[in-house]
């Protein structure tokens, strides 16, 4: 085992321990989440959709579950479950879609679990978690149909998207739905900021679950994320300074 292996193991264990520690400290020192306008708007729009009998559409993106781009979709699946719980009272339960068969199964599982927890198993239908198309643009081509036929008034995009994400967000705008869009790809985030009414910037897509009445570990992970960001920023600044002074080669 090399020194690099040990550093890797140590880092993973240290991060795990820090996360558990911060989660335990949530009881005494709860994390205060800064207000993000997009999540405030989402909360209000979900309430309106439940009252009006409209539907929420949740997209897990056009990425794949086994690819390196699965992280935002996994974070999205947790948020999907929270939204499904929040809309249990509605006559029209959430409909979820993905561009990958495995992600569609994940969406179905998230919906089934959410309805089981809220005692509304009868709301679950396998067809509420759908694969719309196996390629990014075939997925987007199928979106207008689902948005108009399902009477969607809240259109959430939280997953991996490429440039087709701009069309996906624009279709929600044309439906006059509230569009909230977030992804991990920085270029697509730029497209979302132009096409979506509410776009999530940077890592905000990963914090969706925490903002939707998430668990204490989800809130603690945001705090740990901020601590790590400060440490990394300090290291970058120090490196820049040392290099400028000629101390670091």
């Amino acid at each position, binding site marked *: *085992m*090399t020194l690099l*292996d040990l550093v*890797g*193991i140590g880092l*993973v264990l240290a*991060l*795990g321990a820090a*996360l558990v520690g911060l*989660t335990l400290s949530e009881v005494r020192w709860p994390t205060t989440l800064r207000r993000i306008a997009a999540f405030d708007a989402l909360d209000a729009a979900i309430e309106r959709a439940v009252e009006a009998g409209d539907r929420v559409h949740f997209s897990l993106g056009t990425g*794949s579950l*086994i690819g390196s781009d699965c*992280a935002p979709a*996994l*974070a999205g*699946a*947790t948020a999907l479950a929270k939204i499904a719980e929040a809309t249990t009272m509605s006559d029209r339960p959430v409909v979820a879609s*993905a561009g*990958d*068969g*495995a992600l*569609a*199964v*994940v969406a179905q*599982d998230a919906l089934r*679990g959410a309805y089981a*927890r809220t005692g509304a198993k009868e709301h679950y239908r*396998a*067809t509420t978690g*759908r*694969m*719309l198309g*196996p390629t990014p*643009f075939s997925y*987007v*081509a199928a979106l207008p*149909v689902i948005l108009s*036929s399902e009477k969607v008034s809240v259109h959430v995009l939280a997953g991996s998207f490429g*440039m*087709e994400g*701009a*069309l996906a967000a*624009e279709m929600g*705008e044309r439906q006059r739905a509230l569009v909230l869009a977030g992804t*991990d790809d*920085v270029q697509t985030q730029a*497209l979302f900021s*132009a*096409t979506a009414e509410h776009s999530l*910037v*940077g*890592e*905000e*897509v*990963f914090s969706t679950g925490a903002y939707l009445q998430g*668990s204490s*570990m989800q809130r603690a*992970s945001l705090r*740990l*994320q901020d601590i790590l960001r400060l440490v990394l920023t300090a290291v970058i600044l120090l490196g820049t300074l040392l290099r400028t002074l000629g101390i670091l080669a």
Partner: protein
Amino acid sequence: MRSISHYLWTGLAVLFGVLVLAGYVIDLPALHAIRGMLMQWAVVLAAAALLLGLVNMLSVHWNKVGAQEKGWPYSAILLLALLTTFILGLVFGPDSGLLLALFNDIQQPVEASLVALLAVTLTVAGFRVVARRRNLSGLVFAVSALIVLLGTGPWLIGGNSGTFLTFGELRAWWSQVWAAGGARGLLLGVALGATMTGLRILLASDRPYGD
């Protein structure tokens, strides 16, 4: 009260996650072999899930045609196309000239036309942003778009003028210093967010695989 199966599936998910992660950070041949095997299983399962997704798609559109819901003719066309290509693929094989022609002459042009549509969509969205966000971010967006457009060209007249070259340099400075710096900051946040999501899944706090 949670069932035993809940703990079993959660335990298995965490165990497999830890084994795959360990295969990346610990240089042991046995762990590499386990990681490779688990990844192969995942690929096979994803392929099976694609079939499940297709069955799901079939059932959604079949119900739509049956109930004659709004837009049912489109669903009928989709079912016809799906079944035709599926049967042709089974009979002639996925690499046959017929299937490749269907893909190259129908699927690819349709997807390319959607990419072309993106340019129009973004132009309309750009105007909407300026109209909707009458604040600093809207102004920065509009100015940035203008600088990049003018600096990238081509101009109808004065393509070699000093003004064009100045705009080119301004665009390069704007995108390589300000935009690239901002993007790196965002990427740092995305990497941290993805790491935290992975940790929460490994610690069974987030269970995207359900209960």
